[in-house]
């Protein structure tokens, strides 16, 4: 899924770069706001209480922020590791995990965008995996678009039902569909660059990635259940989030 340099023309690479920069700036602002708000709300709540609890309030807010940072760093490490594992799909093709749905389920879409963008940057800069000129396009395809779509699926599922199966079903759908969106975005960038006709590349990309998406869903479910199911995550109902 990582586009190498040469596949996209300069206008598309530049446009995608601008888009990715905008998304990064917005995500950064959102995550910073969330961290700040949590601390401020707790301080405000406790201001009316005895002074001794104020200290506890601030440290609770800070421990929330620190835990979120730990989650983001662990996700970066896990997603980097899992993206190394290409699994065979059909007739001599392989695919690998993306991780946007997993990251979004655990830390929300904005932090997920930061985590995935960091991984994609590391891969391009250090491991020559994905081009540097097309880094913005890879960020959009692998970090920005799939994380936002995963959040949409998770949020819709929360509104539709509170069945105990909701978590598993919404994670599965989010994982699979986010891979399909990544493949779609990649196809559009290739077509816009004049590399290949849209119809041609889109059907081929979606065909292969429909299978890769099944792997994505299985890996997402397994690692969510193993390591994140007991933490406060974005899969929980609104009222108990971060509780």
């Amino acid at each position, binding site marked *: *899924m990582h586009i*190498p340099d040469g596949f996209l023309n300069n206008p598309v690479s530049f446009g995608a770069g601008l888009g990715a920069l905008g998304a990064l700036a917005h995500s950064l602002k959102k995550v910073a706001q969330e961290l*700040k708000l949590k601390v*401020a709300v707790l301080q405000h709540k406790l201001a009316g209480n005895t002074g001794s609890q104020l200290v506890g309030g601030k440290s609770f807010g800070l421990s929330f922020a620190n835990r979120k940072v730990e989650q983001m760093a662990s996700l970066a490490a896990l997603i*980097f590791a899992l993206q190394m*594992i290409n699994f*065979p799909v059909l007739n*001599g093709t*392989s695919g690998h995990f993306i991780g946007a749905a997993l990251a979004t389920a655990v830390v929300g879409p904005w932090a997920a965008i*930061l985590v995935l963008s960091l991984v994609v940057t590391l891969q391009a800069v250090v491991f020559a995996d994905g081009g540097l000129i097309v880094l913005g396009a890879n960020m959009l395809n692998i970090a920005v678009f799939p994380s936002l779509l995963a959040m949409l699926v998770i949020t819709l599922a929360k509104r539709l039902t509170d069945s105990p199966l909701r978590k598993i079903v919404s994670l599965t759908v989010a994982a699979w569909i986010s891979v399909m969106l990544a493949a779609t975005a990649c196809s559009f960038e290739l077509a816009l660059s004049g590399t290949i006709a849209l119809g041609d590349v889109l059907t081929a990309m979606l065909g292969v990635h429909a299978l890769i998406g099944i792997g994505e869903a299985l890996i997402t479910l397994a690692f969510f259940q193993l390591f994140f199911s007991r933490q406060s995550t974005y899969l929980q109902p609104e009222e108990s989030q971060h509780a």
Partner: protein
Amino acid sequence: MHNRKLLMLLAVCLGIAGFLSLYASSFPDGLEYVAEEKGFLERATEPLLSIIPDYSFAGIANETLAASLAGVVGVGLAFGSMFLFGKILVNRSTPTE
């Protein structure tokens, strides 16, 4: 995240990147396959930067060790840089009183 679970997760990451990755499929990935089939694979240019190309240290003769070490270094870099970046963000976002 409890520390024990965090350490377990990191150990799993190192295991995946340092060991399991040696057994990863070497078939072309989805995009590469499509590029090959549709005839635009040769458009790919040489990477501008290749510090550890193909997830394997060039300077190490033993291929298994070279690949394994590259994975371990990558996990370290991913965790370390995200952690550092997050800490800076927390410090900047926390009102000081």
